[in-house]
């Protein structure tokens, strides 16, 4: 009770002055600011109650009292103690940092004012958190220790206890289908060998309701129209470590569909809607087909802007004849328009880079297919990790929505110097800068300075995906390469090439591009009679503008041919290539795609004026097929063929194809598959056929976008039908017999194994362990053997 009220005359008392006692942290100005009463006011019980409530509402005070001292109103307050220290012990499942962050928002952190009710709420919050993790035996106790100076120390001690497991899921009353089949798709499971990984033996109410829904559709998809789950019981063992779920069902009978009708306001021609109906009179009742029909109709209406249309299938069941007549009632609701399209969550990308991918325009009607397509196009940008989209209704306008994209940027690129490692070139010192969203413009810029043991290369390429509003992509690239051996395995071979190229890709439909490009190349090859393989020497001597120089000619007058084994063969030539291509790409993402297909066909042809003439064609297919639950199969097929033209004897050595290694047939050393030169080192061939089949295993949610685990089977090899006379290993008396590397099935090398890909800031790390299935161990009389390698690793560009 408030003493003042008691003593005040009925008319209350005027406040002469106000004095506040007990303030420590809060300043008087603050109290005056919140106090609804000031000097000169009439004070009656109502105003007093109001003031008390106002002061308590500030949350600063544990206790507030008002006294009257003559004409002065005295307010005695006791401030809430401040928290001096706060610690949590015994929490294992929930990390301390997460706890501290969420508790700080609730006001429980060092320095904040302490409020006992908040502490109780936190205890309840923690208990609920542990219940949701299945730890029902948890005990949370909080100790608050008063410390002089109105401060408190808080210690929360958590004893988590054992995690309750689902001991039994029992469906009672099912005669038509056995428990195992019904529980096949359930999320909740009794403990099994995968439980430690999937945590599926932990009870959660949402999961149970989800499973009941699956049970209902299992029955209703097979004709049990009035199947019903009569009741479910969740029982816990007294020791709170086991949980028993009992689902009591009443199956009812199998129903046939007698009749299918359409009703309601059909804004599009009825025939078109009728074509979408997947369930016909005479079929067994199936909810799956009914839902599929309604989805198809909704999608169709969505085309025309009726994004919020509803279609509900009204069944009338006749229990005697066990027949059901279905009426699909169409309600298009009003057509919805888009007011604004917003992009949130990114700071590093210009708005136009997203907006130009939009298939849904502002000021147009909302088409859900257009929005979905737009989301996919953004998701395919290499520098985007995750995209969510939501149509938020505009307040005050029933038919307007804003389309809000929530975009999470991924790894745009790297700027790195330092050490790179690749099988063929061992340690590479390189400075590479690759950015797929240079300055936020969405242009891809790549500059590379590369001085490996075998290859020095300086290259620059720039790709602008939108030179025109419709997305004509232009790529300009120029580069200089000086490679003593283009793969570390080949014999001495010096190639110096300077290239300049420009290419345009024209979108001809939503998923397909036609491309045209030109590239000019100035190349110079050099081989030595001693160190290089015979095949290489042949090529250099017969193509381009061959020249022979003597390495160690002491007497200039004597012609070089006198020193056959010390001569240096050199050939310099120019080529102008026309590159044309077609590509189809419907993958849902560029990195770690999970669905869709990419096909690329490209032809290049040397134009007149080239001193070395050849043509090449290559085709590659990348396809993702979901096979079972969330397992996916990935096919990666690559085939290429090239032929020399005119008086060129063979494809230039640096345009030969190689195989083996992480990107082709794993289990074989990089580029070691295919024809071997006279020293037994890979020479490459003009026919390449490689196929990789990978079974992608499902990944837990939080690693889905950054890692991939798969089992694979690779098959492939490189062949040559050019007129190059390859020779095999020297036989016992040193003679090397000719070898034919023509295409043949049993020469296709195969391997199987397991692979892991991890998207790290530096790029995509690829690890694979493979077992070659039909490798030829060691040199046989006629052929060089294969070089195999179980564990392979490489750092690749992600995009």
């Amino acid at each position: 009770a408030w003493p003042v009220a008691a003593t005040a005359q009925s008319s209350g008392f005027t406040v002469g002055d106000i004095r506040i006692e007990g303030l420590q942290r809060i300043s008087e100005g603050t109290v005056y600011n919140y106090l609804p009463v000031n000097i000169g006011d009439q004070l009656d019980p109502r105003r007093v109650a109001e003031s008390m409530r106002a002061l308590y509402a500030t949350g600063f005070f544990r206790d507030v009292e008002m006294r009257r001292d003559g004409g002065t109103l005295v307010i005695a307050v006791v401030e809430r103690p401040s928290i001096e220290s706060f610690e949590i012990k015994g929490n294992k499942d929930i990390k301390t940092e997460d706890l501290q962050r969420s508790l700080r928002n609730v006001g429980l952190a060092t320095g904040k004012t302490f409020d006992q009710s908040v502490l109780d709420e936190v205890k309840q919050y923690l208990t609920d958190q542990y219940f949701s993790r299945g730890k029902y035996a948890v005990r949370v106790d909080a100790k608050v220790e008063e410390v002089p100076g109105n401060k408190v120390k808080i210690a929360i001690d958590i004893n988590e206890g054992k995690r309750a497991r689902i001991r039994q899921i029992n469906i009672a009353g099912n005669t038509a289908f056995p428990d195992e089949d019904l529980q096949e798709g359930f999320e909740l499971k009794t403990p099994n060998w995968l439980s430690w990984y999937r945590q599926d033996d932990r009870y959660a109410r949402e999961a149970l309701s989800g499973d009941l829904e699956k049970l209902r559709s299992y029955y209703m998809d097979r004709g049990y129209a009035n199947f019903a789950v009569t009741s479910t019981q969740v029982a816990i063992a007294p020791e709170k470590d086991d949980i028993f779920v009992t689902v009591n069902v009443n199956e009812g009978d199998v129903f046939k569909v007698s009749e299918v009708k359409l009703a309601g306001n059909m804004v599009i021609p009825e025939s078109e809607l009728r074509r979408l109906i997947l369930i016909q009179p005479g079929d067994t009742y199936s909810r799956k087909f009914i839902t599929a029909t309604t989805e198809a109709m909704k999608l169709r209406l969505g085309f025309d802007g009726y994004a919020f249309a509803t279609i509900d299938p009204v069944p009338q069941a006749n229990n005697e004849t066990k027949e059901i007549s279905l009426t699909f009632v169409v309600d298009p609701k009003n057509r919805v328009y888009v007011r604004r399209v917003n992009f949130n969550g990114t700071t590093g990308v210009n708005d136009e880079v997203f907006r130009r991918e939009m298939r849904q325009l502002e000021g147009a009607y909302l088409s859900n297919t257009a929005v979905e397509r737009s989301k996919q196009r953004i998701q395919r940008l290499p520098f985007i990790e995750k995209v969510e989209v939501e149509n938020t209704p505009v307040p005050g306008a029933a038919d307007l929505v804003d389309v809000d994209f929530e975009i999470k940027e991924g790894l745009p690129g790297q700027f790195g110097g330092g050490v790179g490692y690749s099988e063929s070139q061992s340690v590479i010192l390189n400075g590479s800068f690759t950015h797929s969203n240079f300055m936020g413009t969405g242009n891809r810029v790549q500059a590379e300075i590369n001085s490996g043991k075998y290859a020095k290369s300086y290259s620059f390429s720039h790709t602008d995906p939108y030179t025109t509003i419709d997305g004509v992509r232009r790529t300009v690239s120029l580069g200089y390469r000086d490679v003593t051996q283009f793969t570390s395995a080949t014999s001495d071979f010096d190639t110096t090439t300077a290239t300049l190229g420009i290419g345009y890709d024209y979108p001809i439909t939503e998923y397909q591009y036609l491309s045209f490009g030109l590239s000019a190349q100035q190349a110079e090859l050099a081989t030595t009679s001693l160190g290089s393989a015979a095949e290489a020497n042949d090529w250099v001597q017969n193509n381009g503008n061959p020249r022979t120089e003597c390495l160690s000619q002491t007497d200039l007058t004597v012609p070089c041919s006198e020193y056959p084994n010390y001569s240096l063969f050199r050939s310099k030539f120019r080529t102008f290539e026309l590159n044309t291509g077609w590509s189809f790409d419907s993958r849902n993402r560029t990195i770690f795609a999970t669905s869709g297909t990419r096909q690329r066909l490209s032809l290049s042809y040397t134009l007149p004026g080239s001193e070395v003439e050849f043509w090449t064609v290559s085709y590659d297919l990348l396809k993702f097929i979901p096979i079972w639950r969330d397992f996916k199969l990935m096919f990666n097929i690559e085939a290429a063929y090239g032929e020399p033209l005119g008086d060129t004897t063979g494809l230039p050595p640096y345009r030969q194809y190689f195989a083996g290694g992480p990107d082709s047939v794993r289990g074989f050393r990089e580029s070691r598959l295919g024809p071997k030169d006279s020293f037994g080192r890979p020479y490459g061939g003009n026919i390449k056929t490689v196929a990789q089949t990978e079974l992608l295993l499902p990944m837990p949610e939080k690693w889905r976008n950054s890692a991939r685990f798969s089992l694979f089977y690779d098959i492939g090899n490189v062949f040559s039908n050019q007129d190059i006379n390859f020779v095999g290993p020297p036989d016992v008396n040193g003679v090397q017999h000719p070898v034919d590397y023509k295409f043949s099935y049993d020469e296709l090398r195969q391997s199987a194994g397991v692979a892991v890909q991890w998207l790290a800031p530096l790029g995509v790390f690829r690890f694979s362990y493979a077992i070659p299935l039909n490798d030829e161990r060691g040199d046989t009389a006629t052929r060089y053997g294969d070089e195999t390698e179980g564990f392979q690793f490489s750092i690749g560009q992600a995009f």
Partner: protein
Amino acid sequence: CDKDKDVDPPAELVDIVAKRNVQEIWSLGLGGDSENLRLALRPTVVEGTVYAASHDGEVVAVNAENGRRVWGVKTKLSLAAGPAVGSGVVVMGSSDGDVIALDASNGQQRWRKAINSEVLASPLVASDLVIIRTVDGHLEGLSLTDGATRWAVDEQVPRLTLRGTAPPVLAGDRIIAGFDNGRVIAVDVRNGDVLWDTIVNAPHGRTELERLSDIDSSVHVSGDDIFVVGFQGRVAMLALDSGQIWWARDASSYRGFSMDDENIYLTNSDSVVVAMRRADGAVQWEQSALRRRGLTAPTIDGDSLLVGDFEGYLHWLDKSSGEIVARRKTDGERITNAAIAQDGRTFVQTDSGKVIALRSTSREERTADSGQ
């Protein structure tokens, strides 16, 4: 890899001075692994024959004296409750919601009926009816001759309950049964009318766990008084005719209790055995040496109490003081249901389906009837 340890671990066994001799008379092994499914399979002894059933569907009748098999039958049902024997019929309930009745003399199947819900409480044979209680709060009276439903009663079941349900008990022409919502009801055995309905164990607290208020153990009727105990609630004495509560004390038990003229011997939910005076519930003694060992309800065996624990140990406590007087290890499997005492012998069934017959005598008595 469950590395978390128990919040508070079960008590360790301490060796004791044996003051009671225990002999195993016979034992037999039924199949069916029902570890920690906490079923209600418990042997029943009628006129010198022990009837027992196991989770894999095997039902046997053996001679109580020597354990020789009278008949055995495989029912291919996942039996979960029973057997209950009466009027020449043996009745069991299964996890999949079936009730099966066999002829007590030869095990031939009389009838079989599906009632669409798990049976976790031992059926009750009452004159020409058998009363079945299922986990969805359903009490049903079936005809003993052909299993036709005579009447049914349904009680509300809270969202989260304790595993197990209370078996119905016959008192005159009334069926008394406790339910998972903390209520005890009396039903007229003839027509299923609910005579009275008393809340013994009201739920309290914030979380669903705190609000658990099941009455999962069997009520005991003696004269006009009904004794009942609930989980996280109360032990109480009710009037048989009106259900009015005479006295009630705070107690928490899911295994239940047994009774003699003087006291109630109760195993509480912490597995502490408590003796309370029947008249007013005053606590006589408490034995907490076996704390948290998942003890069964006590069974009166002479002047001792027999309890089984979660590691298959049998313990005998002195009825007057609660002191532990004997201990014997069975097959190491959890003993979920209390033993049955009949004519000086006790029969107990472990979760792995092993049925053991024992006789225990106190040291002094031994000298008296050692000749038997």
